[in-house]
């Protein structure tokens, strides 16, 4: 070609996407909102304790006297049936709800992407069998699977690595916490199916492209091709799908807690708080409203952010 042609300034796909994301005001709003909520939820309980000595799980000595109080200057979101401060509980619950979103999505990502990439890459019979398995698991109501997982691996049977993980992240000595981590994994294990399908589809169309042949020709191992070459190219749809999974998983956890199967006392999640609050909707509506609306706000922000990420990563879907 001609040397006189001035080079066009190149930007990577990611920088382009980031720029587009920032231009989307709703998505930015969602992102900012999420950061604020995350800060509240992480630092909040500590600040609250430092300032007022209130914690989320301890039932205060005067619990009987102040139970089910409406919002007041001392208790911004009122108190629950045992006299605990709702604000503290909502903050604490937020930690668990957000962790559900993150950890379960990571689990579903890891399982789904690996499964899908391997199936897509190996193709043929193996792919067929693997996808039939996915179809079959898909046909079973997920509640069943979650309940089975929780009862099989619950309590004494909790795998030690889950216990280890819960202790590292959450502090030691608490068996209840390891059950919650078990819940995270169980939720992740029912959410990976569509991710696997998406990744497999992508890999199927990518694997015949030239860069794969080039990698093969230079002697990259199968494992290497799958994970170092193909997977990074599927990142777009994977991120899109992950953004759909986070709110979905949080809603599922809330649903399970509503049924009494999810987070157990003394821990709380927004779902379990809302479930507790439903009982008293007529008389103490704030017990449902605060956790419920906080959760709605978080999901709202997550959805906007997810939308924004999708638009930013896939220009075809852009508005104009």
């Amino acid at each position: 070609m001609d040397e006189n042609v001035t080079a066009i300034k190149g930007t990577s796909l990611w920088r382009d996407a980031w720029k587009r994301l920032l231009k989307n005001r709703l998505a930015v709003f969602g992102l900012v909102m999420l950061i604020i909520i995350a800060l509240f939820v992480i630092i909040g309980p500590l600040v609250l304790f430092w300032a007022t000595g209130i914690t989320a799980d301890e039932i205060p000595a005067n619990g009987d006297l102040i139970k089910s109080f409406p919002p007041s200057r001392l208790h911004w979101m009122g108190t629950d049936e045992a006299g605990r401060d709702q604000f503290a509980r909502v903050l604490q619950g937020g930690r668990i709800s957000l962790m559900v979103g993150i950890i379960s999505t990571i689990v579903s990502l890891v399982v789904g992407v690996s499964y899908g990439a391997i199936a897509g890459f190996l193709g043929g019979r193996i792919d067929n069998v693997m996808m039939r398995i996915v179809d079959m698991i898909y046909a079973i109501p997920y509640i069943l699977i979650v309940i089975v997982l929780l009862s099989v691996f619950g309590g004494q049977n909790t795998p030690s690595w889950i216990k280890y993980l819960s202790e590292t992240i959450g502090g030691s000595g608490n068996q209840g916490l390891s059950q919650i981590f078990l819940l995270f994994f169980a939720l992740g294990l029912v959410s990976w199916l569509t991710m696997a399908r998406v990744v497999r589809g992508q890999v199927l169309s990518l694997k015949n492209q030239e860069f794969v042949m080039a990698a093969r020709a230079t002697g990259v191992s199968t494992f290497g091709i799958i994970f170092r070459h193909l997977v990074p190219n599927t990142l777009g749809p994977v991120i899109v799908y992950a953004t759909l999974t986070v709110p979905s998983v949080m809603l599922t956890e809330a649903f399970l807690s509503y049924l009494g199967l999810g987070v157990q006392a003394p821990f709380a999640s927004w779902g379990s708080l809302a479930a507790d609050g439903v009982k008293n909707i007529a008389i103490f509506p704030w017990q449902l409203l605060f956790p419920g609306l906080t959760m709605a706000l978080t999901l709202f922000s997550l959805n906007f952010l997810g939308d924004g990420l999708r638009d930013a990563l896939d220009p075809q879907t852009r508005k104009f």
Partner: protein
Amino acid sequence: MLSFILRRLLIIVPMALLVVTLTWGLIRIAPGTFYSSEKKLPPAIEENIKKKYGLDKPWYQQYGLMMYNVVRLDFGDSLKYPGQTVNEIIWRHLPYSATIGLLAYVLALVFGLTFGIIAALKQNSLWDYGSMALAMLGLSVPNFVLGPILVLGFALGIYWFPPARWGTVANLVLPVITLSAIYAAYIARLTRAGMLEVMRSDYIRTARAKGLDEKTVLLKHALRGGIIPVVSFTGPALAALLAGTVVVERVFAIPGLGNIFIQSVLNRDEPLTLGIVAFLSILIMVFNLIVDISYGFLDPRIRYE
């Protein structure tokens, strides 16, 4: 086309049986039995129970017996409600969830399609942002929050509708609205995306170049292609709705199938669980088939042999 339908129908039965098998396997793996809650029963009594229900036989015999019955559509009696067959229970509770489910979906279609089309037509206008914000709310407020809020507002606050139970049309309003919210939201978003995609097509440009007005362009040319995502969505969504939604049933004290299902799982009521799972999977497969057939009518490029 006919042979296609027949082949699909034929495959439904073995698939359902497969799902039943998997479910059976899952239930058996899970610890816990239907007859023990917290107390441990004395061994003698436990033996008796096991004998009565054939649980002392080897597992493959139990499986064989179960499958033999299932194929004859005999799911047996519920373990938790002795004296009632599974089929009776399902048929008794199905009308409640089906009514609410169907009404909810129709409502969701009406609102979702309307707002989705408006949003696509007046893209980036207030109508667009408003509709999508509303849809976002529908997606973000969990139904166990929305339901009670509606009850609080419209039943207890202003006494427009009764807060719960079954009976008159008025009883249906709040549960149907609660149930339809999230579906309306999905449909609105899918419609908008589908319509926008189609409106960008070359053939829409041709239609305009012929001098057709926007309404004709939209309704005659764009709609057919634009609603395909909604059609895909409808199959599984409707099937799940008919089978019941636990939350709405609990909040509004409606004796639907969803609650029955959850209870059966928690109670380890194996026959009932298997019966409902079989029913649900057949329902899903039939609905998927209907959706696929509609593709054939909507998109002339698709031809089934």
